Each structure stands twice: as C-alpha cells, then as structure tokens.
C-alpha cells in the first residue's frame, strides 16, 4: 500500500527521501529498503552450544552460472562470518566496511573484535545512510556470527534501519516467517554444530518454494569448536550428508502426508 504517495490533490509525498517522516511517524524509504530484503532468497543463522551455522538458499537464475560463484556468505575476520539477504551489491560493500572495522580494531587494540561491538559499529554505519536525502539506505540485511574461546558462539543481525539484535536463531529474506517457525522448533542450546548443520540444510529445503523458484544451491558455513574458531564453508562431505538428510526428511514428510490422506 503506497501510503507515502498522495497525488490526488497534488498533496505532499512522504516517501521520496530518507530525510522525511510521514505524519504517522514512519520513514518510508527505510521500510522500502526492508522490502528489498524480503524480495531476496532466504538466509538463516543459528547459534548452538559450541558454534554458529549459516545456511543460504542461493537461487540459480541461469544454468550457465559456475557452481559456487556469487557467494552470499562472507568472511569478515578469521572468526567472524556474515550471511546476507537483499541487494547483493549493497551487501558486498557492507562486508568491506565490516572487514575494515574488524581489522582496525585488531590493529589498535591487539585482539579479536567482540561480535557485539562489530555489529554495533556496522549498524551505526548502516544507520547513517538513513539520515540524509542525498543517499539511499542500504537494501540488505545481514547476519553476523562468530566463535571464540572467551565469549563462545555469538549471533547478531543488522537490518536496513541500522539496528542490531542478538539472536539464538534468525532468518532474513522471502521465507523468513516460515524459516523462523522451523527454527523455533529446534532446541539449539543443546545441539552441537554437526547436528545443527543437518537441521539448517533441512530448514532451507523446507522453505524453498519449488513452484516459484526452480533451482537453488545451498550455501552452508560454520564457525565453532569444530573448526577451531575459524569461519569457513562447510566441507564437501559434511555438506553432502546434510543435504541428504534434508532431502530424506522432506520425502518422509511427503510420504506421511499421503498416508494421512
């Protein structure tokens, strides 16, 4: 609903710039930026007992794409990973911002940046772009995850309005509601990364819409005790096992549905 646009009697338009509030107190440009995120395919991040796992449903628009290209999960620092949804170009530039923050922190203070601090710094940067009419807000949300000996696993999400939240599990993108429902069913605080990887793959397979979006590639990454604190893409054998588990679970559900009918 285009409440911002009031053209009937040549009235004021409230949605043309980020520096304008609407009469009911909304900044429409920021809300439109969040819609851009909702058009993108789903990304989820879940924090467990000993690490963090990311899963991204990467829609394959062309058979000509090289497998593994157009990554949606980035390394921000050795111990920090970032999964994105929304305008990919905006997300890439923000990943550079995050990398610089982490690098400057290490250079000034001599140790790994705590994830809460990093997400606050990047959120502050994103927020700055919602204040002026000369620029547009970033059209992407992203999930940051890290693991280190002292703070354990951490998960934060930043959205285009420039707020950062800490989570045990979160989802962004078109199927985020469905994904959130699935995530809430999990007892992640008691799970290890190895168990969680399979569940994350399953959730992505569940929320993927076979009808509207045909082919997709599952991008999985993790950071935790299992990787000694290094964020990396999940190794091939673990990924194949996770995808097999996901596909088998879906078939079981289909079978049980048929039996019920």
């Amino acid at each position, binding site marked *: 609903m285009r409440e911002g646009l009031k053209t009937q009697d040549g009235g004021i338009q409230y949605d043309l710039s980020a520096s304008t509030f609407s009469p009911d107190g909304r900044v429409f440009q920021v809300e439109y930026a969040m819609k851009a995120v909702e058009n993108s395919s789903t990304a989820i991040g879940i924090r467990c007992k000993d690490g963090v796992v990311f899963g991204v449903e990467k829609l394959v628009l062309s058979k000509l794409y090289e497998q593994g290209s157009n990554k949606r999960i980035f390394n921000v620092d050795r111990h920090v990973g970032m999964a994105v949804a929304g305008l990919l170009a905006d997300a890439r530039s923000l990943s550079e911002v995050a990398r610089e923050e982490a690098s400057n922190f290490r250079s000034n203070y*001599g*140790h790994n940046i705590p994830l809460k601090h990093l997400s606050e710094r990047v959120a502050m940067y994103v927020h700055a772009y919602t204040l002026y009419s000369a620029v547009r807000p970033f059209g992407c949300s992203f999930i940051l995850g890290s693991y280190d000996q002292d703070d354990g696993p951490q998960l934060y999400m930043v959205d285009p309005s420039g707020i950062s939240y800490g989570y045990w599990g979160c989802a962004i993108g078109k199927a985020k509601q469905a994904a959130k429902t699935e995530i809430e069913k999990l007892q992640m605080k008691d799970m290890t990364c190895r168990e969680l990887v399979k569940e994350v793959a399953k959730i992505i397979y569940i929320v993927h819409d076979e009808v509207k979006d045909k082919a997709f590639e599952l991008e999985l990454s993790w950071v935790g005790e299992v990787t000694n604190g290094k964020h990396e893409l999940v190794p091939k054998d673990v990924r194949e096992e996770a995808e097999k588990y996901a596909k088998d679970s879906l078939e079981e559900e289909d079978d049980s549905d048929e039996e019920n009918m």
Partner: protein
Amino acid sequence: MAACMSANRSENAFSANDLVPEWAQEEVSTGTTIMAVEFDGGVVIGADSRTTTGAYIANRVTDKLTPIHDHIFCCRPGSAADTQAVADAVTYQLGFHSIELDEPPLVQTAANLFKQMCYRYREELMAGIIVAGWDKRKGGQVYTVPMGGMIVRQPVSVGGSGSSYIYGFMDSNYKPGMTKEECLHFCTQALTLAMERDGSSGGVARLAAITEDGVERRVVLGNQLPKFSNV
C-alpha cells in the same frame, strides 16, 4: 638514563646561560628501577621513588606506579614528561574503549595502545613502559614496551637505569609459581639491590599487588629496606 644524558652537557657548574645553574637546565628524568612479576591471580609491580634533574634529586618520594584503569597499572622509566603524556593519552583511550565495549579492558589492549604510541613517535619519545594488571580472560599479565615500541609479554620484567644491576638477581631468584607474598618479597629485594648501586634510583620502594579484588599498595621506607651487606 640520567647518566647518559649528562654526558652531553658541559663539565662546568655554569654553562652558557650564567643565570641558571646547569642542574636546573637538565631534563627531568625518572632515572629509575621498575619491575613487575606475574603470579597466579594477579601481578606485583614495584618502583623506586627518585626523580632527578641532572645530579639534583627533584623528588625523592615520587610515585612511579601509575593507574591506567581499575586493574591495570604502568611503570614509567625514562623522561618524566614523555611518559606522563603517553600515559595520560592511553588512560583516555582505554577508558573510552572500556565504556564502548561495556566491559573492563584487557591488559593486552592497554599494552597495545602504549605500543602504538611508542612506536609511532619512537624518534621523539624517550619512554619505555612496563604495563601490568589483571583481567578476567588471562589473569595476571606483564607486558613490556621498551623504547622503540616493541611489545612482549613476560612473566617477570625489569626496566629503567637501575635494572642493569639486577638482571642477575632476577634470573637466579625468580621462580614460576610464586605466591603474592613471595612476589612482594622478591620485588622488595630486587629494588633494594638496584637502589644501592644505581645513582639514579633510590628513596623508598613502592609496591602494588593487583588482583581481581583490586589494588593493594605498600611502601617500604628507606630504613626498612632489607640489608644485604654488613658494611
């Protein structure tokens, strides 16, 4: 430190400027002996209390143990002005950083901030620092940042002009796994030996023990220092 500085000055009591005696033109230096020792649960730091301008003792009861944060101290040998300026700047930066992070700062962070400044301005500064303190992650830690801006963590570290005389004592008497009282005793002895031999060190021995519970300061007055020789 003070010894090598005065080698550049003239031998006469009055130099080119006759109105002011030579000693009043010397740069203020904390000649110094300082040291820091790690133990399980914290650190003990110690320093002498003499500040010199040339051969004149400007302050015989100086406090060279400077708090940088609640559980982090630094010892400042070298030029008094340089080390005070650097310590003030680092105190500010560390305080700001701690508020931003909403948790007490790490000793490693403080030491790195000192290193950044000492390395960047290495040509202008004459400051070697020993940073010591306690934090939740790694417990008691001692980092030494000598002139030039290197940083290294050591279980025990000595610095200042008087340190040259006690390296042997330190090597032969330091044992890992000492208790807080043993460390205090070890520091008192080492400082005493250095103050005996180094002209730029003397006065009283100031000690501080930093643990999770806070800072406990002690002063050992001149006549209470241990006696090593009967002469």
